């Protein structure tokens, strides 16, 4: 391990692995990946089901296989890897950033670097965040925690299971628990539609005759030591339980799949600006955050639906981080030759910039800000819609003068799917005003 790196990547999951790889390819020699688990791969290691990689690798892989391929790519590249370690603090600086790291093997140390890629991933929403009434019995797990126990530790967390929330991890666990001999009695979703992929609804619920109750929720959990019974009720359009619709399930386990939250405590403490819509950093077109030299990608930036897009995004963040570091060292060289040179002319911070503003139909966009002068060719904009659309609609980008800058047709959209469009540099140069609104509209 060195005391100074060109780039430190925080997180060795798919985002961190992608960013480190592309930064190395982009010309950086000294890169460190910090991973809190004992091995690289992140949450993919416990996602033993298949369905990963169709977009990126062109074939269907399981989570461990996808992680394995990303890890294999790093072999021989000379990237330092510190597993079983924690980044405790990022201290941004003018000249360089410093990180406090701790691990049982490498000890407690301060390491400096020119750029940082945030790739810490996300965590699951817990019972406390959704306030399910009832007791504090054992047997209530987030789906991801249950997945870790079952797939990594080899232990079953229950025999009779109900699942709250129809997120993909919950659906996957319905099948997984069933195949390991548990009985999954129902999957209960508060919204009138599922946030999970259709494929998972079919192959994880329907294949095993597990009912999915939309517009329902768990309104009570009973059991003193371990969960014994839950009450499920239908909800009205304001998500209030409807009296008289009670259903009772004798279960010993409740799995929660009620959403993921980007894990940005480290970013927040460092002063990185956070977008309340994504709970992730506000980023520019190159995934650079509000602090120069700190980039973000993957689920720490916004929760993705497919890991393939995480890889794509992290590779561009890694490239951008490499470009940032190399540009700085070029500037340093120029400074060395000519003391009067300010080094500011090529600084993207000085470039003009506009914001993407989602209207009420769009949950968020990433990036949130674009500097047209910094866009090479195109910029890819990811977003999610707030409600499902079963008939064709268009995504419209309007500038400050309400002029349509671009529009894209989509035959159908759903909040569970991350959408993206590609904006060309030429279009961006024509934007007037300081923002672009994004909306879903009828096709005119």
């Amino acid at each position, binding site marked *: 391990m060195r005391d100074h790196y060109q780039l430190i990547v925080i997180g060795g999951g798919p985002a961190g692995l992608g960013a480190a790889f592309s930064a190395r390819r982009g010309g950086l020699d000294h890169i460190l990946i910090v991973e*809190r688990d004992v091995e690289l791969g992140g949450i993919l290691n416990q996602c033993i089901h298949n369905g990963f990689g169709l977009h990126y690798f062109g074939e269907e892989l399981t989570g461990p296989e996808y992680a394995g391929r990303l890890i294999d790519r790093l072999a021989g590249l000379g990237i330092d890897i510190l597993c*079983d370690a*924690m980044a*405790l603090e990022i201290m941004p600086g003018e000249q360089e950033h410093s990180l406090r790291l*701790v*691990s*049982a*093997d490498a*000890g*407690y*140390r301060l390491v400096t670097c020119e750029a940082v890629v945030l790739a810490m991933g996300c*965590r699951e929403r*817990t*019972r*406390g*965040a959704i*306030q399910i*009434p*009832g*007791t*504090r*019995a*054992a*047997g209530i*797990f*987030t789906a*991801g*925690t249950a997945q*870790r*126990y*079952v797939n*990594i*530790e*080899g*232990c*079953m*967390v*229950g*025999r*009779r299971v109900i699942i709250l929330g129809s997120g993909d991890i919950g659906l996957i666990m319905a099948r997984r628990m*069933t*195949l*390991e*001999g548990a*009985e999954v009695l129902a999957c209960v979703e508060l919204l009138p539609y599922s946030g999970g992929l259709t494929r998972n609804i079919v192959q994880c619920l329907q*294949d*095993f*005759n597990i009912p999915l109750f939309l517009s329902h929720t768990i*309104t*009570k*959990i*009973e059991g*003193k*030591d*371990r969960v*014994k019974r839950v009450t499920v009720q239908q909800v009205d359009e304001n998500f209030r339980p409807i009296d008289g619709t009670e259903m009772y399930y*004798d279960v*010993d386990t409740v799995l929660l799949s009620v959403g993921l939250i980007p894990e940005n*405590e480290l970013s*927040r403490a460092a002063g990185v600006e956070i977008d309340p819509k994504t709970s992730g950093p506000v980023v520019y077109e190159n995934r650079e955050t509000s602090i120069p030299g700190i980039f973000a990608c993957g689920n720490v930036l916004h929760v993705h639906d497919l890991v393939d897009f995480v890889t794509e995004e992290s590779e561009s963040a890694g490239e951008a981080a490499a470009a940032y570091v190399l540009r700085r060292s070029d500037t340093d060289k120029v400074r060395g030759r000519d003391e009067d040179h300010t080094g500011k002319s090529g600084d993207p911070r000085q470039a003009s910039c506009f914001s993407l503003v989602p209207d009420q139909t769009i949950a968020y966009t990433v990036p949130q800000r674009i500097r047209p002068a910094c866009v090479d060719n195109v910029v890819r904009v990811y977003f999610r819609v707030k409600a499902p659309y079963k008939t064709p609609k268009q995504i419209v980008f309007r500038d400050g003068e309400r002029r349509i800058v671009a529009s894209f047709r989509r035959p159908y959209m759903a909040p569970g799917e991350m959408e993206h469009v590609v904006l060309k540099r030429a279009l961006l140069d024509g934007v007037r005003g300081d923002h672009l609104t994004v909306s879903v509209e009828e096709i005119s």
Partner: protein
Amino acid sequence: MIFDVAIIGAGVVGCAVSYYLSQYELKTALLERENDVAMGASRANTAIIHGGYDPVPGTWMARLNVEGMRRCFELCEELDVECRKTGSYVIALEDEQTETLKILLEQGVANGCEGLEIIDGDACRAREPHLTEDVAAALWVPESGVINPWEFALAMAEVAVRNGVSFMPNTRVCDIAWEGDHYVIGAADTRESFEPLDRDAEPYAAAGSARGTGEQPTTGGERGKTMIRARYLINAAGVESDTIHNMVAPPSFEIVPTRGEYYLLDRTVGPLVKSVIFACPSAAGKGVTFSPTIHDNFLVGPNAEVIDDRDDTAVTRAALDDIARKACRMVPDFNPRTSIRNFAGVRANSTCGDFVIGKAAENFLDLAAIKSPGLTCAPAIARAALDILREDGWLSERKADWRGGRRVVRFKEIPEEERAAFVRDHPLYGRVICRCETITEGEIVASMKREIPPVSIDGVKRRAGTGMGRCQGGFCGPRVLGIIARESGRDPLSIEEDGAGSRVLVSETKKAVRRE
């Protein structure tokens, strides 16, 4: 063998009594029906060290509050328990409530509080900018603060055990008989057997066919009853203190179990309040409290609901909504969505309206019906109990070799410049297990080596602070379970989340492997 003293109940009061008694040449037992100390109201409360203006002068509560408060801070210092003197405000939202503040101030002065002061709304809001603009005036109580209540109870019990007190968990008192010169307690083992449930574990048969047998987890009955003999009994049984009293003496009071529900808010909501904020008590009730915790999160609650089942710590939609409404009235920025946990505690309110402290029978002392501010008063209650024992001639000889004090290494508290050396010498303190609260493996392992080791994931949580944060143990739970199994040599399948019977895991996968 016959104990000199048996304390029934290892809540904060029982633990405080055991701490002080351990300083004397006495054979003392501390009986607890749960698998750990502080499992009742002592762990599910507002975690406040109260200032002492609230109790009506003349009551036990009024007599003991200020002394208890000061002793709490001293003990926390001595036993390395997390606490913070935040001060508190009682806020008046209407002008007529200002009159109440004056009454509280007078009561406080009568009870011995120092530094009480009524300030106007602007002054209050200058110090607590997130409070509602409706604040008309506030009573400032500088001496009060917040505490880690379960660690407080635990720390006192640890010192007691170190000095010879027998801690007997999972021991439920069923009956008590006086045998002329000592009591015989018939006690049952509360550990119910929660079977691993793997008997009918059948891998999935075939698509569409019947799945599983649908058998419910079976819970076995009580195991054998044991006899515990003691010359003197101290009833510190909290919500069951009337039950214990009635085993020995004629009924004289009745517990009115009163449930209070809470929100725990993540610190990422920002610095909502710096001090404890009390609503002004009114005819409509006490109102909720908004307070910082020693872990820099925020606690909001409680309501007060009289319930039948003394163990019913369930939370309800109605109460949580009610608390949210009242909290918004005080701190408009309160958002229930920033909650990371809801919980409820059952307070031992009683028909008597005050603590019940005193001899109820020969060699039988009630420290009963200890409701709020019982946590604050606990050390003073214990001192009052010792006075009674002393009068009865039980406290003749102090232990010459009594060892007090306690130190806990918390990674977060190690000064920056010492961390590198400390981690080099103690590598386990370099492995962060709970990432939300930055708790290391070293702290968990150390907690397992102290006088009363944790037996469950929540036991570790109460000692080391793991799982207290925003992920609520989602990430660290499996790792903590593994460490408990490794350090105690137990089967991971036997490890509980919290109380007896609350097993986390039910079986292994891929069980039927054939071994040659």
